[in-house]
């Protein structure tokens, strides 16, 4: 049974309305929910307004009553600064409900000397930090401590059952049970607690058994303390805005080292890094970098440099910033426990890996991180889809899962040249374009291939197909809507391109290639070289 310090702000919904919406809590104010008063200010209470009154009744007793709608979100929002203020004095605060929070009393009591001093300190600090009048109470268990806080009392250790014994039964806050117990002649918590626990459970059920535990001064559960997460991000402000890439890169490297040191201090390492740069004009660029291993200090520095390089020089689609960088923030987004860099079991990450990493990182520095790619096997039906290229150093995750059957994929051998997409024309013997009907028959045997480049026309000596694929048919392409249900096959209509028909052809000059007909257009998609 732990000693619990309970901080309670009386009439919190009224105070929250004052803090958030600016309704003066000194005037007669009532907060209403479903036409009933849920809280009122002391001034209203002096006029006779009580909890549970109807609106008209309350306004009848106090004609100049200010009525505010109940808003649990406002209550919670307003309470957050109070929790933060309590947390500044003592860690491990648990919010019970807006307006009340509890914490273990042992730590602050030892720190401030005694429980009395701890409670005073916390109330004082909340008053200074938020301007909110709070009351604190200490007892064994959150329930008893909450009741103690209403009286502003500190119940001595071991005195909790005696403290609870004289209190009215209605404090257990279970109206039906209270009503029943009253009719049975039980009016105080002490009388309720005197009943045998097994009989209470058998007669009134689990909910009453819980209330019985509370009334006897035992807690329903131990406090789940909220531990503030350590702030791992590092920030650097620059008095002189950084305009040049090399200066920014130097600052980034130092910041990277600081982040790495801070993480190492917690025994952590990061796998994803968020870099946020803010310029003098308030523009902000954020990008997250992933990594397949753990980011070392140098790797963090490199990524900062790449990002700033790309941004400051304004290459690519995004325009450059209009002012120099004044603020740089590194946030570790994926953090793992770090127990030293692990070498791969089969010798990966050994000597060869380090040599390769140095060379490849150098090229990334020269051309940008996207210039060096590594292939990852992934799933797909065309040879180009079966490989995902990811930048060196990034997580090797395929775009589509490699596992699975992928029916309709091309039979081996695999073409040596993929991702071609050269438009061509395929003609029959008479020089007419070749198409494919809805029943997957070619309109004529392909006889000639006509390309735009210097090789010009070539005779087709052998061919096979069509091998149809229809992928992602369940998605609608924006602006096109659902394709009308016509007999015309989709691969001859230019507006949709979810259906593809593939052909293998062999040309007179010995070349073999894979042609794709999609949306009425022929393309060379791969070459068997």
């Amino acid at each position: 049974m732990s000693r619990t310090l309970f901080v309670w702000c009386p009439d919190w919904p009224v105070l929250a309305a004052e803090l958030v919406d600016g309704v003066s809590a000194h005037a007669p104010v009532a907060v209403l929910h479903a036409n009933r008063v849920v809280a009122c200010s002391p001034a209203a209470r002096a006029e006779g307004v009580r909890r549970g009154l109807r609106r008209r009744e309350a306004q009848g007793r106090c004609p100049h009553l200010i009525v505010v709608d109940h808003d649990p979100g406002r209550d919670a929002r307003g309470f957050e600064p109070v929790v933060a203020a309590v947390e500044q004095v003592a860690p491990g605060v648990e919010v019970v409900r807006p307006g009340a929070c509890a914490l273990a009393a042992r730590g602050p009591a030892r720190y401030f000397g005694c429980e009395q001093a701890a409670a005073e300190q916390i109330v004082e600090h909340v008053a200074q930090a938020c301007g909110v009048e709070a009351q604190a109470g200490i007892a064994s268990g959150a329930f008893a401590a909450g009741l103690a806080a209403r009286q502003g009392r500190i119940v001595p250790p071991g005195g909790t059952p005696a403290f609870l014994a004289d209190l009215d039964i209605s404090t257990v806050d279970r109206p039906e049970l209270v009503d029943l117990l009253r009719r049975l002649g039980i009016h105080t918590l002490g009388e309720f607690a005197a009943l045998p626990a097994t009989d209470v459970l058998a007669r009134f059920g689990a909910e009453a058994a819980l209330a019985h535990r509370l009334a006897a001064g035992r807690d329903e559960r131990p406090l789940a303390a909220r531990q503030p997460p350590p702030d791992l991000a590092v920030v650097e402000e620059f008095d002189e805005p950084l305009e040049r890439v090399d200066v920014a890169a130097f600052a980034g490297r130092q910041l990277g080292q600081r982040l790495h040191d801070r993480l190492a201090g917690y025994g952590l390492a990061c796998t994803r890094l968020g870099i946020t740069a803010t310029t003098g004009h308030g523009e902000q660029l954020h990008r997250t970098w992933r990594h397949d291993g753990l980011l070392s200090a140098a790797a963090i520095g490199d990524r900062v440099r790449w990002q700033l390089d790309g941004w400051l020089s304004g290459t690519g689609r995004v325009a450059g910033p209009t002012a120099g960088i004044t603020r740089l923030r590194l946030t570790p987004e994926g953090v793992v426990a770090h127990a030293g860099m692990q070498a791969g079991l089969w010798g990966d990450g050994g000597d060869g890996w380090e040599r390769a990493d140095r060379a490849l990182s150098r090229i990334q520095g020269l051309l940008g991180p996207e210039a060096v790619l590594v292939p990852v096997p992934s799933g797909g039906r065309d040879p180009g889809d079966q490989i995902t290229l990811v930048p060196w150093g990034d997580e090797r995750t395929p775009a589509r899962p490699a596992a699975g059957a992928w029916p309709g994929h091309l039979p081996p051998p695999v073409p040596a040249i993929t991702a071609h997409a050269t438009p061509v024309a395929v003609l029959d013997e008479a020089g007419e374009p070749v198409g494919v009907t809805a029943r997957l028959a070619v309109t004529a045997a392909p006889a000639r291939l006509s390309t735009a480049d210097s090789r010009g026309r070539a005779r087709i000596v052998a061919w096979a197909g069509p091998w149809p694929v229809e992928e992602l048919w369940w998605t609608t392409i924006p602006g096109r809507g659902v394709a009308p249900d016509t007999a015309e096959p989709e691969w001859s209509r230019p507006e949709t391109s979810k259906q593809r028909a593939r052909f293998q052809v062999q040309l007179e000059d010995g070349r073999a290639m894979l042609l794709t007909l999609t949306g009425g257009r022929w393309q060379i998609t791969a070459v068997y070289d």
Partner: protein
Amino acid sequence: MRSTTDAARPAGPGRPGRIEPTDLGRLRAIVRDTDPRMAVHDRMPLLEPLQPLLGGLRRGAVVAVDGDAGRTSLAMALLAGVSAAGGWCGVVGMPSWGCLAAAGYGVRLDRLALVPEPGTAWAEVVAALAGGMDAVLVRPPAPVPGRLARRLAAKARQSGCTLLTLGRVWEGCDTRVSTYGVEGVGRGGWEGLAAGRGRLRARRVTVVASTRPGIELDLWLPGEDGTVRDRGDSSVSGRGGVSALSSRAAS
């Protein structure tokens, strides 16, 4: 161990401390065999069907790969030997290089890095990659002038990286490997495809190397399973490539 020490004794009893120049090669061999760090083999292995052609890829050499049928496949097969021996491979300037086909020949994808579009900086990229890779395949965007070729070759020799170049654009290479299609259905050596039916199954090619003019290798490149295979009636080796293939086709 004892015999090694005896062999390593540099000079006879009559001339203490002098090493004859003729002993140097023998000494090097001994050191290389005893110290694993010194075991830098100057040749990287090739896939077995290609072995008679070159005997191995010499580190620091420039090998030009060309021909009218399957030069990309041949380059993949050459890299596969390096990769199978645990080496790292780089590919520069080939945006449509089919990694899946390369994996089929035996290139390990976790030890492969691509620089698809180096642009005008391709020579710097090749020089940087040569310092970290065991083999680099490059397709230069234009014919390479002799001076640049010599500079890159020197860089490759210095770092022990084999440079493979695609096409007839490199002046002064050490070895030229060429592949030609054997007459099949058409001129490319492909088998399996007919007018309106079948599919591409395998390709017969003849591969020659400029360093061994007498040898013509007859290969399936690719074979029906996507790897390199002897055709069996090769002028050098006679393993049952064809029978293996036909049995696969039957099953």
